[in-house]
């Protein structure tokens, strides 16, 4: 079976004042559908850069990324936007949501970009809000929600487009331990019950402990790849 993500020999070099700095140096990754993967490593290890390349936000200097067999490393910027919209869900560290839209509208927004009908959008947004346990916050704006609630909305929004996988860049970094734990519960439940593939970068041990597969990066290279049962 073809992996959902096939990253081959990814290299990303930044030129800092004429000196080449290898942010990512020869990373190979194969991620199957339904995995719950943590990319870990210290700051500057290349977690976010790998995540950006897998998510089609950044292009590798060398190597390629195939998503369900499609090489996204050679796509134009405009095609990549469309590809991301239909295939990848994103949860960022913070400021994830559109501040002027309510929780429900934020979730609907992605479906609007996919040109889904208004009734379908609303129905799915309400379902997703229920799944992440904040149905009662549907009409609240992000500024009226706690950090944990905002991240739950972000997870719901990431799932709204029915993506192949969800990328989360340090999703718990700005959350207290209870909110972080609740968010992970939701992500785990979605992974277990709906087979949603999650790949998240983190250096939070509480998150690492919950991951089913831990890929450790150091100096832009994969130094370990451990699966847990």
């Amino acid at each position, binding site marked *: 079976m073809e992996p959902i993500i096939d990253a081959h020999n990814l290299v990303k070099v930044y030129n800092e004042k004429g000196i080449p700095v290898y942010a990512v140096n020869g990373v190979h990754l194969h991620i199957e559908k339904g995995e719950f993967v943590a990319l870990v490593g210290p700051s500057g290890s290349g977690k976010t850069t790998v995540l*950006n390349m897998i*998510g089609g*936000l*950044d292009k590798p200097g060398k190597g390629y990324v195939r998503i369900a067999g499609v090489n996204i490393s050679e796509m134009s*910027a*405009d095609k990549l*936007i*469309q590809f*991301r*919209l*239909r295939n990848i869900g*994103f949860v*960022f560290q913070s*400021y*994830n949501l*559109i*501040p*002027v*839209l309510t929780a429900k*509208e934020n979730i*609907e*927004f*992605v479906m*609007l*970009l*996919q040109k889904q009908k208004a009734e379908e959008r609303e129905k799915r947004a309400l379902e997703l809000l229920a799944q992440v346990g904040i149905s009662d916050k549907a009409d609240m704006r992000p500024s009226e929600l706690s950090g944990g609630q905002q991240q739950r909305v972000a997870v719901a*929004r990431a799932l709204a*487009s029915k993506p192949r996988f969800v990328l989360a860049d340090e999703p718990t970094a700005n959350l207290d331990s209870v909110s972080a734990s609740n968010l992970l519960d939701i992500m785990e439940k979605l992974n277990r019950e709906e087979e949603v593939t999650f790949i998240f970068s983190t250096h939070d041990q509480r998150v690492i402990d919950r991951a089913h597969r831990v890929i450790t990066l150091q100096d832009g290279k994969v130094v370990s790849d451990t699966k847990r049962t």
Partner: protein
Amino acid sequence: MITKLIWRNIWRNRRRTLITMSSVAFAVVLAVCMKSLQDGVFDNLVKSLVSYYSGYIQVHKRGYNDEQNLEHSLDGPDTLLNTIANHPNVSGLAARIETYTLAAAGSVTQGCMLAGIVPSQEKLLTGLDSKIISGTYLRESDKALLVSEGLAAKLRVGLGDTLVLLGQGFRGNTAAGMYPVQSIVHFGAPVLNESMLFLPLKEAQEFLSTGNRVTTIAVNIRDAAALNVTSHELKKRIGPELEVLTWKEMMPEIEGHIRADAVNFYLFIGVLYLLIAFGMFGTLLMMLTERKFELGMLMAIGMRKRVLSTMLVAETLLITFLGALAGAVISFPVVKYFEYNPIRFTGDMAAAYRQFGFDPVWPAIFVPSVFVEQTLIVMAIAAVISFYPLVTVYKLNPVEAMKR
């Protein structure tokens, strides 16, 4: 939902949006009021000028305007007068015979302009009777003169004195006659005040041996804005043998002055709009900087650059439009107020105005196109400024945008 997003985005920083809108509104108010006032002043000036003597339009035999003599006169103008009077925009007309003549009283002789007029027509067209400062207005059958105040002073004549007129009549005939002064009129314009003599048309035609001829048909119109259209239509109606001239063609220096002043206005308003444009641009820069992460995030989750830039351009245009609309709404009662309550000068300024025969007032004029024009100008500025977010979005890299 995109519309909702645009609307909410413009109000996310309410104070900044209101300040931007206010600056746009202020510029529109200032521009509309100034333009309405300037147009009002010019309209008043033109009305005063044409009501002195010339009328809005004059009809002559072709060539008269270049060579003003009796050889370029019109014979039997009754049919022509009817044709002109039947035009729906014509509100009045007056037939005249005009020539230069010598006037003598005692040992003083002066060159002057003699106008043979139909008193009842002039009364309606130029209000000549209202300019009389002594004596009585002419009747059609009178054989007497109406003399301008300055000319009377030069000739040292008063009411009841006799003037001897000597000139050249039609086809080289000698024209000579003696007429009593029946009334004296004052013109604000010095050139008229020091040179005009009026005789009833029949008597002037007799004096000049022209028979039924006239040189000029002065025409007033109802809608001054339709001046060129009316002139064009009259030309078509009366044929190529005659010339139809508007006041702009007869007095190009006045038209030139109005145009020059209009340019000055646009220079002033241009500077004002430039300042407003910089203010709007500053707002846009701040907004883009504040929302850089968000724009990157929107692109990351799948919002196309085209949609994103359309949204930002729409926000800029909407803020500007609302500001311009507010400006137009505020300007409306201001312009209307000054239309009915013109700025009225007093003292020396008023005296100077009166000396030249003008009312010492600055009225505004309500022209809807001025409101539309100024709104479109600020919208055009906003459209130009919107290129900046457009370019910014097209250059935006979501990874760079979301870096902290």
